[in-house]
Each structure stands twice: as structure tokens, then as C-alpha cells.
């Protein structure tokens, strides 16, 4: 055959394949290369705030944050507008699970990328924070020097310890969450207000209660809530699990679950995969009690048309677990100064009041309202709480989270007891 290649095709091929070919070649190299990113290894010092502001100008901050809620996404958009006023572009990278971000930073470290990383800021707490701090994947300390940090109460333990792990300035708080339950008052007038009465209620109403499958965050929180209610040895729970008598502490919890499980929705042979599914199951009349980690969840769902307006929130008599949401900066972040600016905006009274407004989101503020000036405090006083939202005074003092190692152990044991059938 002596045909010549059609020249146009050849040209087009050569032109279009450039990058792909290059990828195929580089992808097979396994020697780390020096990243060619414009990343800076310098470490902005939040104590010199004007310098941070100057450095942040023009930076793009990739904020990795859970993206499963319209109202949260809208609030983050609004934070982006505020950041833009200071010359910082905020991009919300929507995650379905925060662990995706942890994986990503780990992969970057594996690949030797010590600067110019893909994540500048991450919404984090608890287990994920403990893991990242342990592995040296976080930048810091920086958070306690933020200008607006002064508006918080320095003795508020929820802000200095995250699931008992000292934050030590490696993450900056921005919202308070607490476990709340909700019920449809049209179907269930008086909900059970403790784990013990919940069990009795479930036995009388089989198939009408369930909880998200651990290690889903809310599902694990339900386990910890039960653990605290049945074994109120808070001192054991504050220390790592190895240091405590695990068997004795958790025995009442497993006894409770052994009795509860056959009474669950689908007899405990299937579990919803997230707390959001609980809201749907409530609407579908498959279950009678739901739970969330946001006091305002039920009101939000009513406003969104996901739940009937007869739904009400409640907490257990002995109180419920609460914790703070934080933002952290990975060790190799590309726009550390910009990330600090965003973290500081999150702590501003304007943003905190907006966040606490159930019409926007309804997450609790981390600011010390007593420390605010009257003008700063005014928007907080104007917040209207929905009929399904408990007022801060009704929420009581949140119970502290156990050390994260408890959650790991509980999740493992739960899986081998209830999560693998048989």
C-alpha cells in the first residue's frame, strides 16, 4: 500500500494528543518531581494581620466543605461575597464526605507535594481533625491569633478541645452543633426523652425507629449518646479508649442495642446511610423519630417542604452531645493567608448572626454574646426561631464528646456486631 496519510488528520492528531501523550508519559514516572506550582512555602503570621491581608489579596481559596445542603451551600456562597470584598476569591469544593479531603492531603503528601497543595481550607472536626493532626497534615498554629477570635470566650472548652483533642491553634471554630431529635407531633404526641424510654417505646412500636448506619457521623453520635446515658463515667470517656476498661464501660450499651435492634426499622437488617435519609423516611411515614446534628434541621426541612409542619424537635432529659465545627489549613496549602482571612470572616459577628438565623442555616454561634458591643449583638437579638427549633435556652449545656478513639472502637465493634449480618 502506498497511500499517504491524510495530512489534516495527522496534524489534528498531533495537535490534540500533545497533553494526553504527555500525561501517559509522566504518569508512569515514579520519581517525585519538584512541583512547578506557584506555591509559597512561607508561613503567614496572623499576629501581623495587615501583612496577612496584603498577602491574601488576589489569592484563590479552595474551601473543601460538605456540599449536601442547599442552605449551607448558600451560606458559603455568601461568605464568598464577603471574602471577595477583601480581594480573596473563595471556591467551595463540595464534598460528600470530609474524609475525601483528608484522603486528598494524604495523597499529596505521599506524592511529595509539600507546597502548592490542592486544598486551602477544610471544614473539619473530631476524628478527621485528630487523624490529620496526628499525621502532621495540618498547618499551624494560627487560629488563636485571628482578630475576631477575641470575640469568643477563651474559657469555652468546646473551642479549645475538639472531641477532647486539644486544638492548639491548628483549627479555627465557626459553629456549634448539638444532637437533636425530632418527631411528628401529629403521629407521636409524646416522644421518649431518654435511651431507656426509647427502648420501651420501640418495643411497643416495632419498625418505627432507626438510626444512620455507623460510621456515619450522626449514627456514631447516636452510639456515643447511648454510651454516655448508660455509662455516665465521663472521666473514662475523656481519655483514650486504651486507658479505660472498655468492656465494662460499653457492656450496658451493647445490652441496650441487642434489645433494640430487632425492634428497629427493617428489624435492623438495613440502615439508612445518612441522617438526611431519616428526614425522607419521616416524610414517607416509615419511621416516627429522626435525629440531626443541627438544632434547626427540622425547621429547615419544614421550610423546604420535606417535612410536614407538625414536626417538633426535642432533646433527651440528661442533655445531648454537642461539638464545634472548625476550619483547618492543610500543611501544604497554596493560599494560607487567604484561608486565614476566610476563617476570620467566619468568626465575624455579621457572619455568625447570619449563620445562627434559622432562615439561613441555624447553626449555633461560637461567639461570646456578652463580649460583643451592642451593635454587634443586635442582629442576634432579631433572630426568629421556627416552631420546630428549640431556643438556645431549651438546648441546655451540650454534653462533651468522648475522646475520638472511643468512636473508632465503637464503630468497629458496631460493624462486627450489627453491620455484617449473620
Amino acid at each position, binding site marked *: 500500500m502506498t497511500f499517504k496519510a491524510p495530512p489534516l488528520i495527522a496534524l489534528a492528531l498531533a495537535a490534540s494528543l500533545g497533553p*494526553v501523550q504527555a500525561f501517559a508519559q509522566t504518569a508512569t514516572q515514579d520519581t517525585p518531581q519538584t512541583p512547578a506550582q506557584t506555591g509559597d512555602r512561607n508561613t503567614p503570621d496572623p499576629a501581623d494581620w495587615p501583612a496577612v491581608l496584603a498577602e491574601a489579596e488576589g489569592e484563590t481559596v479552595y474551601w473543601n466543605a460538605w456540599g449536601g445542603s442547599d442552605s449551607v451551600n448558600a451560606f458559603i456562597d455568601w461568605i464568598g461575597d464577603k471574602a471577595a470584598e477583601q480581594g480573596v476569591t473563595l471556591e467551595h469544593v463540595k464534598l460528600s464526605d470530609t474524609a475525601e479531603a483528608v484522603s486528598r492531603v494524604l495523597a499529596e503528601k505521599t506524592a511529595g507535594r509539600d507546597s502548592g497543595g490542592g486544598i486551602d481550607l477544610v471544614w473539619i472536626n473530631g476524628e478527621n481533625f485528630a487523624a490529620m493532626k496526628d499525621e502532621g497534615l495540618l498547618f499551624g498554629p494560627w487560629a488563636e491569633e485571628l482578630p475576631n477570635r477575641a470575640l469568643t470566650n477563651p474559657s469555652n472548652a468546646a473551642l479549645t478541645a475538639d472531641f477532647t483533642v486539644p486544638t492548639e491553634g491548628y483549627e479555627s471554630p465557626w459553629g456549634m452543633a448539638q444532637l437533636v431529635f425530632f418527631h411528628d407531633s401529629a403521629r407521636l404526641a409524646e416522644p421518649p426523652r431518654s435511651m431507656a424510654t426509647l427502648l420501651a417505646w420501640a418495643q411497643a412500636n416495632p419498625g418505627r425507629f432507626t438510626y444512620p448506619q455507623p460510621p456515619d457521623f450522626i449514627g456514631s453520635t447516636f452510639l456515643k449518646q447511648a454510651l454516655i446515658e448508660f455509662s455516665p463515667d465521663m472521666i473514662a470517656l475523656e481519655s483514650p479508649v486504651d486507658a479505660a476498661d472498655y468492656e465494662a464501660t460499653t457492656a450496658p450499651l451493647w445490652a441496650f442495642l441487642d434489645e433494640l435492634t430487632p425492634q428497629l426499622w427493617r428489624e435492623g437488617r438495613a440502615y439508612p446511610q445518612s441522617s438526611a435519609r431519616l428526614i425522607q423516611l419521616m416524610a414517607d411515614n416509615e419511621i416516627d423519630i429522626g435525629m440531626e446534628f443541627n438544632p434547626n434541621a427540622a425547621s429547615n426541612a419544614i421550610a423546604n417542604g420535606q417535612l410536614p409542619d407538625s414536626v417538633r424537635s426535642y432533646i433527651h432529659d440528661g442533655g445531648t452531645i454537642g461539638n464545634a465545627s472548625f476550619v483547618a489549613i492543610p500543611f501544604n496549602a497554596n493560599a494560607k493567608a487567604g484561608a486565614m482571612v476566610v476563617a476570620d470572616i467566619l468568626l465575624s459577628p455579621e457572619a455568625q448572626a447570619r449563620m445562627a438565623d434559622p432562615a439561613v442555616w441555624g447553626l449555633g454561634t461560637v461567639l461570646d454574646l456578652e463580649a460583643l458591643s451592642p451593635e454587634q449583638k443586635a442582629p442576634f437579638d432579631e433572630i426568629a426561631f421556627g416552631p420546630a427549633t428549640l431556643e438556645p435556652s431549651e438546648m441546655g449545656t451540650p454534653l462533651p464528646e468522648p475522646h475520638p478513639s472511643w468512636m473508632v472502637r465503637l464503630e468497629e465493634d458496631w460493624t462486627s456486631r450489627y453491620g455484617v449480618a449473620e
Partner: protein
Amino acid sequence: MTLLRLAPILTLAVMLGPVIAGLGGTLLPAIGIMPVLGSAEPGLGPVRDLLAWPGLPRAAGLSLFTGLASTALALTLTMLICAGWQGTRAFSWLERVLSPLLSVPHAAAAFGLAFLIAPSGWIARLIAPVAGWERPPDLLILQDPMGLSLIAGLVVKEMPFLLLMSLAALPALRPAETLVTARSLGHSRTGGWLRTVFPRLYPQLRLPLYAVLAFSMSVVDVAMILGPSTPPTLSVQVLRWMNDPDLAMRLRAAAGAVLQLLLTLGALGMWRLGELLVARAGRAWIETGARGPRDGLLRGVALLAGAVSAGAVVLGLAMLAVWSVAGFWGFPALWPSSLTAQGWTRSGAALAGPAVQTALIAGVSVGTALLLVIACLEAEDHLGLRPGRRALWLLYLPLLVPQIAFLPGLQVLALISGMDGTLGAVIAAHVVFVLPYVFLSLSDPWRRRDPRHARIARALGASPSRVFWRVSLPMMLRPVLTATAVGTAVSVGLFLPTLLLGAGRVPTLTTEAVALASGGSRRVVGVTALAQTAAAFLPFALALAIPALAWRNRKGMQHG
């Protein structure tokens, strides 16, 4: 000339390079090598850790069972439909309904199906007034431990694919002629078809079937929506380990990914064994010469199964459409109590950016794949570089290796090369998956085209490139557009490659759909799933419309 000669090699490199490199990146952590976690000594620790996980036998068994059962069921139904109805009006109707369903993304189909068959789903709501249900029955229909709903979800999505593959291969076998002979010898329609056409058709379906089997065994999104969770299938569990805050779980995840690969190989081996057994039994059956019973019932069942399968997907999509505008919609109401455009104004607006990204990625990756495939096919013609059977296997490799087994490794390599999080990396990963499908849908029509047209054009003095542009390509317009549509549907639906190589910075409709769906609001799920379906469906509509428009005054091209 040299470039055209290089085309096949280049195509294989672009496609296989990432797969092989990624597998290496997964294998190392599986034997304990992950220096960043302080684990540099090779050892069997991760494997032992994996074997100690109590859910392993069930998870692995589920993967195997759901994969084999759904593939076998989809094949049986597709073959019975072809056997009983090919050439009839009902068949062309079914063909017309099933083909567009190929473009419906798996996740969207699964969500639609879930809402239909759940105990509080639409079918239950139809029954509720009759049965007097005030509450949905506490039945384990979705997430059942046997994975039956998962199998149903996979079957309704794989049937259109297998049907299309059969339709592409059938004409060359001239089934009408053999069928006439068989029937004149007293065989029923189905019996005659199974005896004379099926044995010749099957070899052509073998590779697509293997791809279906490998995919069904390791699918993640459908298994998360319809599959069991106590425990889930192995691939879902591997993804969970990869996302576990405890970073040491990455090693267990890698070992699990390797097991998934072995499991897939094992299942392919079992399928091959099954082929041999069926072939032996079938041969004996044919040789008895028995005429068999009448096939009326079988034909009815086959048609019904096809119609139910198509109906489930279509009705599921309709349900998603209603959900996307629904206000509060409780059980057992058949329709929402109010309608709202909130879902579309809020979430819909947020999807505009990802929609552009999706189009860009699909456009470039499908364009690249088309160029490579056409170059390969031209190389066949001009240089005699015909791929052997082995090369065809290589072409299928990216579809046979479970995504979960090589993508995490590939992500690390992309990071090392500094390409992660760029559009280029995502597009390159998409090409890996788009290319095989484009090749499969384009190669047969291309090879079957009548060479005399080109010969005449050459005889009239046209240069080879002029012949290509003015004769070959225009005559191939319809298959090229079909291949484009298939490739686009594949690209639009890709989740893991986009997520892992895009670093979350390259949002597409599919990644946004999954992120938003984690919030669980059915309205948002409805909006995103429909947007995703539209993105995959549009190219199919164009592939039908453009040739009709371009050839409105070319009678000979209107049915080609």
C-alpha cells in the same frame, strides 16, 4: 504516514498506560508499602488485616453473586427478546424504547427505580388504598441482604446495552435466512433462533458481556443506592475504607482493591467455564433434533420483561421529574400536595457551571477518542494494520479492570506529575474509558462500508485525503455521530475518575449530583439526576436529528 502507522500504538498507550500505572500504585500499598504512613517494609499486614474483617466473606460473596446473576439475567432476557421477536413490529418498538435508555446514567436510573419499588414508593402508594395501608409496610425491598434490588437495577441498565450490541452484530449473521430454514424444518421461532443464530452471535457478544460482568461486580454508585449495607458489596466497602479518617485504613483499602481485581478475574473464569458447559449442553440439545414445545408463553414472558424493564426506567425518570418540583409529598399521597420551582431555581442554577465543565470534558475526550479511533481504522485500510483478537482484548482492558482497583493508584501518580486537579488530567482519564466504547460502536460500520465508493473517487482523481473528507467521512456521518453520543454518555456518567483526578476542583454534573444527593433531599436528587440524564441524552437526540437533516435530500443515505 508515520503518524497513521503510530495510531494503533498511540491508542493503546493512551488507554492502557494509565490502567497499568494505576494498578501498580494500588498494588504497593496492598503489600504494605506506603512510606508516608511510615510503612515502607513489604509485608502481608494489610492482607491479614483485610482477611480479619468480619464482613469480608459476605461482601465478596455479594459482589460475586450480584455481578454474575445480573449479567446472566440481562443476557437471558436480551436473547429471549431477540429470539422471540426479532424482525417483528413489537421488536422495532422495543428497540426504539430501549436504545435511548442506554444514555440514562446509572445513578439516575437507580434513584428512579428506588422510588418506584421502595415500600413507601409509588407502586406501594398505588396499592395502599386497596390494601388499606396507612403506613408503608416494613418490608426489606431496597438494600435487601441478597442484593436483589441491586440486581434489578443493574439488569434494567444492562439490557439496553446488550440489545444494542446484539443489534450491531446480527445483520452480518443474516438471521432471517437461517430462521426461515429452521422454521421450515418445524422449529418454533424462539427454538430455531436459539439453535441457529445464538451460537454464532454469542462469540461477538463475549467481550461486551465480560465488560458488563466486570462492571456489575464493582459498580459503586448503583450499589450505594440500591444495594445492601450490612455489609455492602466489596467495592463500596473499599471506597469506605479509602474515605476513613483513620489513615491506616488506606492499606486495607488497597488490599481490598486487589481482592476485587482477583474476584473479577475469578468471576470471568467462572463465566468462561459456564460458557463451555452451556455450549456442550446446547450442542447435545441441538443434535437431538427435537422440535420442542410451542414458544408462545416464552415469547410473551420475554416481551413482558423487556417492557417492564423499559417501563421501570421511564417511569422512574418521570418520578424524578415530579420530585424535582414537588413540595411536601408524604405517604400515601400519589401526587405532591404542592408544586415548587425552588429545586430548579436553587440547585438548578448551581448546576450551570458544572454543566459547562461536563460538556467541555465530554467534548474534548470524545473528540480525542474519535480522532484516535478513526486514525486506527484508516490505518487498517491503508496500511493493513488489522488488530488481532488479542488487540481487541487490550481494547477491553479498561472495562475489565475494576475502576476501584486502579484509579486510587493513578491519582497518586497524577499528583507526582503535578497534573492532578487539572482539566487535562480529568480529560485524559475520561479518554481511557471513552475510547473503548467509541471504538466498539464505530469499528463495525466503518469496516463494513462499501469500499467501491472510495475506489471510484480515487479513479476520478481525488487525493486520499480528499476521498476521506468528501466521501468516507460524510458517508459515515451517522455511525460517527452515534459513536459520539455513546462516548458522551460514558463521559457524562463517569464519577470516580472525575472525583479522584479532578481533586474536587473539576466539578461535573455527576460529581455535583453525588455531593448534593448526600443531603438526601429527593427534590435535589430529582433535579441533578434529570440534568445528568439530559446531558447524556442530548447527543443521542442530535445523533438522530443531524443525519436526518443533512440527508433530507439523499434518499440512499436515509436508512444507512
